[in-house]
């Protein structure tokens, strides 16, 4: 099966929002390549007509009433207690939209 290239590793890292240093790329490339080669053995298996399995409970469509359960609801303070980047009880996040540069 296919050998991983440096460009592919950089592409995957970008998709996964990971920043890799040069030494990490150098270390991970052969390690990931050997794993990718190993898992490639699955192409030997005849899977024609076999349905995929995503979970093994045999359950389908587990529903509950759409009701607020106040005994199991966190307060705003508890829910935001893990962050110090807060504003008026909201999380502060980085901007994802920028000013248009063509105006």
């Amino acid at each position, binding site marked *: *099966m296919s050998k*991983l290239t440096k460009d*592919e*590793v950089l592409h*995957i*890292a970008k*998709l*996964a*929002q*990971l*920043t*890799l240093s040069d030494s*990490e790329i150098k*270390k*991970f490339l052969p*390690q*990931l390549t*050997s*794993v*990718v080669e*190993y*898992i*490639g*053995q*699955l*192409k*030997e*298996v005849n*899977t024609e007509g*076999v*349905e*995929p*399995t*995503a*979970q*093994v*409970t045999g*359950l389908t469509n*587990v529903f*509950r009433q759409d009701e607020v359960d106040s005994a*199991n609801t*966190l307060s705003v303070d*508890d*829910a*935001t*207690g*893990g*962050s110090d*980047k807060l504003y008026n009880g909201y*999380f*502060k*996040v980085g901007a994802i939209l920028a000013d248009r540069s063509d105006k």
Partner: protein
Amino acid sequence: MDLPLTIKETQKGLIEKKFSAVELTDSYLERINKYNKEYNIFLTVSEEDAYKKAKEIDKSEKKLPLAGVVTGYKDIFMTKGIRTTAGSKVLEGYIPPYSATAVKRIEEAGGITLGKLNCDAWAHGSSGENSDFGPTKNPWNRGCTPGGSSSGSGAALSANMCLVTTGTDTCGSIRLPANYGYLVSLKPTYGAVSRYGVIAMASSLDSVGPLGHTVGDVETVFNVIKGGDGHDSTVVDHEAQAIKSKYKIGIPKEFFVDGIDPEIQKTIDEAVKIFKSEGVEFKEVSLPSTKYAISCYYIIQPAEVSSNLGRFDGIRYGNSREAFGDEAKRRIMLGTYVLSSGYYEAYYLTAMKVRTKICQETEKVFGEVDAMIAPVAPTPPFNLGEKTSDPLSMYLTDIYAATANLSGIPSLAIPSGFSKKGLPLGFQLMGPRFSENNLFDLGKKYHDAISFEPKVALK
């Protein structure tokens, strides 16, 4: 004081006032203070909470099933007000606002929470060496791994720092630390125990279960934590299966081939002989697709890992993604790769189909036998550092573990003896979904027949 090694003896001692729950807590803490620095087992000790609870137990009637049972939790279980790191620097200072269902149920049943146990970061690993807080050493031999990923959960019992522990098993992570620590543990049926409040690794494979010194203790804790809580929609409340009067155990021929360690082969041969003398029948069975189990697992699991770890963005809690360690980065990338455009069909979809074949073969075998016997790992405890530079060789440690997770069946890890070097040996018994009761029964039969006594490593 000599610490009791079973729940029964602990509760007998408390009721007869041979010792108090506060004195038990003192003794475990004394051992933690003596050995933890060297063995790196507890990441957080919740001394104040433990004493508070111990005093309550000393004042109460002690009728609860886990009254006075001093417990440690793998640090992937959320504990309200007690730091929970998942073994990762990403969650270095994270204090959860609520507790996992398993923790809550153990505490409500009288358990005393003593603290949080080291593990491979995000439960990624077979040796404990992927913990961002340093590896745990095996109390039976400090040059060896205690087995991962629930490394602290095994070592805490071998070092007698608490009476029972919890772990999570996505591919052997409850069974291997028991196997490498002369302990009993249960990877329950997928869907028997709620994962609510347990940091997710690979959601179609993760199981929550107990580790202890005896089959009876593991059974007691399982009965406390099992069953639906309305917060994990995979959990089914299942009637316990009736205990069988006669058993037939399958020996999967694909698991006993070249490469199996001779001492492990020998200990399983002896166990088979003992079971036979107890009237258990044996039959050779076949699981032809299990040779692809690790490949299948190392596609499905990283795919689910890459999705589950997507939520760690450093905004609502925890540090940024730069704080991920090497193994988490490798798995996130592997998962992203097998799910990415152009590779999804070749890897992920194929793996889901191979999983179907493994499930079908397992189901067929359980039409012929009541349980299967197998090694837990290919070798006894290996040396720290032995496999760290070669992730693939580390992954292959779990070659016998994957079948139970992929097919969602329960497996009981049982200690059987020691190697010539004095390292723990054991085996696993797998059964059909929701057959835990019968696995416990078989485990007790075996341990009764060999007059099993629990043992701890450090004086």
